[in-house]
């Protein structure tokens, strides 16, 4: 995260230097481009931040629980249990009528926090497994991940704006003159860096997101004292794998597993993994089983054998 902020400031400063003559005697006193891009990104993201959790929930078609239905009552009970285990107030609970098994958490503080699961998840998982999933989601809330990822997307948006200016400005004749007076050895690497900055920013953002997923898995294990529940849930979801169509790139990091991934072809070490919002599911399962003191499940697939 710190790396992220430094990177953002560096890109901003580079553009200020190249196009506005900042940091020289002739230039303006403040790094104009950096501040402007930051301000713009903050305003757009703050609107998403305050109305955000409700906006996301309604865009996903989330509905309130109906406590007459036994399954919903069970879900309510499980969330109560996990709220107790984590020592946090009860979040709001929603369900999405969708067969794809998945879950998400939103809300930037404990008051507007919400946990949301699909009906597909409720039918697929048993009580213990659902408990693991809910614990993972509550961990996201407790670890302030939603807030963190909001910050990350502010910076991501800011860098996108800066890079856009940086590239556009380069072709104009006015800035061509400005560039003339500067050291060529400094200009070329900076221009390349600016051109690549949106990609680098996205890589950084996704790295942050993946780390938070591992952390949420670990915190979930701490709350339930039962890592195998979540591990089995992930296995079942992996085997049932289907994309969740209502999710978008902007909301993908909120989910339990990457809702945009189509297949089950998640393997370690592929370049695509660097751009993934979630760590490879196999690795998460493996780590959870290790926490439970078990080696890898013997049979890859639906049936998991418990080996002590």
């Amino acid at each position, binding site marked *: 995260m710190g790396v992220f902020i430094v990177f953002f400031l560096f890109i901003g400063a580079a553009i200020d230097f190249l196009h506005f003559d900042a940091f020289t005697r002739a230039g303006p006193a403040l790094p104009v481009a950096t501040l402007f891009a930051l301000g713009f990104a903050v305003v757009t993201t703050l609107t998403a931040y305050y109305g955000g959790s409700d906006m996301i929930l309604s865009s996903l078609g989330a509905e309130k629980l109906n406590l007459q239905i036994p399954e919903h009552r069970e879900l309510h009970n499980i969330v*109560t*249990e996990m709220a107790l285990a984590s020592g946090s107030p009860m979040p709001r609970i929603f369900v999405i009528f969708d067969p794809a098994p998945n879950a998400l958490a939103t809300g930037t503080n404990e008051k507007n926090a919400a946990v949301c699961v699909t009906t597909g998840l409720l039918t697929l998982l048993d009580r213990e497994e659902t408990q693991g999933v809910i614990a993972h989601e509550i961990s996201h809330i407790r670890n302030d991940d939603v807030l963190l990822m909001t910050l990350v997307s502010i910076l991501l948006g800011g860098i996108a704006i800066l890079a856009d200016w940086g590239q556009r400005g380069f072709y104009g004749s006015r800035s061509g003159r400005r560039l003339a007076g500067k050291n060529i050895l400094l200009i070329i690497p900076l221009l390349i860096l600016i051109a690549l900055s949106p990609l680098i920013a996205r890589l950084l953002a996704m790295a942050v997101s993946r780390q938070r997923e591992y952390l949420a898995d670990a915190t979930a294990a701490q709350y339930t004292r039962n890592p195998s529940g979540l591990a089995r849930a992930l296995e079942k979801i992996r085997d049932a794998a289907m994309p969740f169509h209502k999710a978008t790139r902007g909301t993908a990091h909120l989910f339990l597993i990457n809702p945009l991934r189509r297949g089950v072809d998640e393997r370690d070490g592929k370049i695509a993994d660097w751009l993934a919002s979630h760590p490879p599911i196999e690795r998460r399962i493996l780590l959870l089983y290790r926490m439970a003191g078990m080696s890898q499940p013997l049979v890859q697939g639906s049936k998991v054998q418990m080996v002590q």
Partner: protein
Amino acid sequence: MIFVIWAIIFVLGIWVISTYNGLTALRLRIQNAWRQIDVQLKRRYDLIPNLVETVKGYMQYEQDTLQKVIDARSQAMAAKGVKESAEAQTALTQSLGKVFALMENYPELKASKNVSDLQEELTTTENQIAFARQYYNDLVTQYNTKQQVFPSNMLAGLFGFKPSEFFEVAEAEKALPRVNLSLTR
């Protein structure tokens, strides 16, 4: 020189205030966590007579077990203090577990919607008690650790913070079932 002394006093002052506040906040959270356990326990007391009434008709031959649950309940309700109530609760949990296990033998009991609703209610109450207790114990660990490690132990002694009691699980519940897999000759 004077400036350095003031700076040291300032930093010390901040440290004292933040340690004191941290300990106090933990103590309040422990009290709150204890109340949470209490709420769950009360709910269990309310649910047990319901359960016994519902299953009594089906489980003709288990009157002893049911009576034990009722007795354990009244004992737990009478218990005072963290340690005593922890013990009574353990006895109650065990006798309830026996009833759940016996219920498996009565298919018509499991088929009843009333009973399955009640069972889910009791399951979640049991879980909620366990998780509330887990959270309570985690907080107590934090609180007690903070009172014993250097340097915050100096302040804890000075301001009279006392270690809290764990909500302990009796030995019987902790003991793992031992399975002997060695071949007999």
